[in-house]
């Protein structure tokens, strides 16, 4: 264990190495490039491989290949790069490939403002790929949490054989903070379950009780078939409704049924709160400051902050907001997660506080918007 003064980008790189990262492929993009640079320096010292490939498409596909070759693998990108990766992410989902994608949001659409912050891509990250699936997305609000959630992202990804995303933003990416960096021995590190049956009895997509199939990798002697087509338990293409339904339902259910392994949240001053603020990522830092200020003014405000954006934590939110008079959803976009919150809290007054700010929306700006509702 050591304390370091680092950015979230570096904290993510450290978290990945602590988790056992062995392969990283990436393509330069602001504001994420320094993850690639930092790992290019550090990962080979720990026996891993880093390569800068020709684009984001190559990077994510190489990461999928590396994972099947037995390595814990990761790539990192920003909004336009993720747009290029979504087809391959769909491939990782159907082949149940464990891997981690770091997604540092920057202001779009298109080239937008590459160096500045936003929370515009909370739906793209979840729904950008084609097909019907679940995709875990973790959303840190500090450099320390970036480290912690990266370790968690690898664990979730390896346990459930599902690609897992760490959703950060340009502000967090380059904010320097103190981070406790733990060594692998001081952390709970989980690796994919290996088959216990001999090759002739092994079926690469036959799940265990947790709905997750044990994973044989290339060179293990199991002669696996990694199939992007709809496949049965053997990995054989099967274009029937029966197999399609069984496969889709399992891909979705294995994440939903195990969502307690993914979902986590923090609350501040929420007991007996009249007003609950829902905020995530960097924006939650401003909301936290605002909530403290409101409390000083005698207003009973509280903050609910999800650490996992997807799957959406319906149960936790309902519980925390049950006594609240109003719920404010504060985000650095025109109001996206608001829709999700409003749908879950149908009997509540849910107010969208969507603020467009190339930095983090300040507590004062948020207060200005919400004051008429207090």
């Amino acid at each position: 264990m050591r304390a370091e003064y680092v950015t979230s980008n570096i904290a993510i790189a450290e978290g990945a190495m602590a988790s056992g990262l062995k392969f990283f492929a990436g393509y330069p993009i602001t504001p994420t490039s320094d993850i690639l640079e930092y790992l290019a320096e550090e990962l080979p010292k720990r026996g891993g491989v880093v390569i800068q490939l020709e684009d984001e498409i190559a990077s994510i596909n190489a990461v999928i290949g590396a994972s099947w070759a037995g390595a814990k693998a990761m790539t990192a990108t920003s909004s336009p790069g993720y747009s290029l990766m979504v087809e391959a992410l769909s491939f990782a989902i159907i082949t149940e490939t464990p891997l981690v994608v770091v997604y540092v949001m920057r202001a779009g659409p298109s080239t937008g403002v590459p160096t500045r912050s936003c929370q515009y891509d909370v739906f793209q990250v979840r729904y950008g790929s084609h097909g019907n699936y679940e995709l875990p997305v973790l959303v840190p609000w500090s450099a320390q949490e970036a480290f912690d959630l990266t370790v968690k992202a690898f664990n979730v990804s390896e346990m459930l054989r599902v690609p897992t995303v760490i959703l950060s933003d340009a502000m967090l990416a380059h904010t320097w903070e103190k981070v406790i960096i733990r060594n692998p021995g001081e952390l709970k590190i989980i690796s994919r379950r290996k088959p216990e049956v001999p090759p002739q009895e092994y079926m690469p997509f036959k799940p265990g009780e947790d709905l997750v199939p044990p994973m044989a990798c290339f060179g293990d002697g199991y002669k696996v078939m990694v199939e992007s087509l709809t496949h049965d338990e053997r990995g054989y293409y099967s274009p029937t409704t029966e197999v399609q339904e069984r496969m889709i339902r399992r891909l979705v259910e294995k994440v939903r049924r195990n969502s307690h392994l993914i979902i986590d949240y923090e609350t501040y001053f929420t007991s007996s709160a009249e007003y609950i603020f829902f905020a995530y990522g960097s924006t939650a830092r401003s909301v936290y400051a605002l909530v403290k200020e409101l409390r000083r003014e005698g207003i009973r405000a509280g903050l609910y902050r999800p650490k996992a954006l997807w799957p959406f934590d319906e149960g936790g939110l309902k519980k925390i907001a049950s006594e609240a008079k109003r719920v404010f959803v504060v985000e650095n976009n025109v109001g996206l997660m608001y829709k999700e919150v409003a749908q879950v809290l149908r009997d509540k007054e849910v107010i969208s506080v969507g603020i467009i700010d190339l930095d983090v929306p300040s507590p004062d700006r948020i207060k200005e918007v919400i004051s008429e509702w207090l």
Partner: protein
Amino acid sequence: MVVSKQVHPLDKYVRVDRLPHLWCPGCGIGIVMSAMLRAIGRRIGEGVFKEEDIVVVGGIGCTARMPLYLNFDTVHAIHGRAVPFAVGVKLANPKLKVIVVGGDGDIAGIGGNHLMHAARRNMDITVIMVNNMVYAMTGGQLAPTTPTGLYTTTTPRGNPEKPINVVKLVASLGANYVARASVTHPALIETYVYRALGKEGFTFVEVLSTCPEVFGRHIGIKDAAQLFMELREKVKVKAKPSLNESYYDWESGFVIGEYVDKDDPGYLRMFGLLR
């Protein structure tokens, strides 16, 4: 009546439970597959690599279906991305023998950028590109390899474009081995793949192939044997052809042979990954 079960010598490398395959009668891909398996078998016999260390990666298309029938670790990846998938496999576990199989559309069309950079890096993988000069699985559209002037469903007035010369492209980027074969000369496919599998760095074998169902119909030769004979007449075998002889069109024909054979250090050696 007792029928004795015939076992083909290559059955051990085939998922026979998946046969019959989906390729059309007269398709050349089966010839490529058996030649490739014979070459693989020879290299296994020599102890160059083990059967369980072979990974065959395909993208999308008729040729990219080959991994479904192969009894190795195999991949049916997404369109155009077999090469970067293979790169990730090789770098994560250098002891694996990684082979990419794909059509001209998969490898040189949508996947062209990845092909270029893998060749430039002299990445230690083998790419076998079966060139039938058309998008066959999707029903006969223009390929980047379609000869000028020929009809396709998306160039109904004839192809106005020049075909990409993948042999020269890959050679220009420094690949260690570049050969062109043809399904009309199966022994040479085996020889070139055998050579490619024994070398360090990026090795590339293009195999000209016949697609009577789609390409043949387009040019008015839908009889498989006739198309095969037509291609055979157009193919010239040369021992050491020069790269300038690698350009082709349907009229002047095709020169096959080993265009590049050198021993520059591969990516793994340059990166210090050879242990």
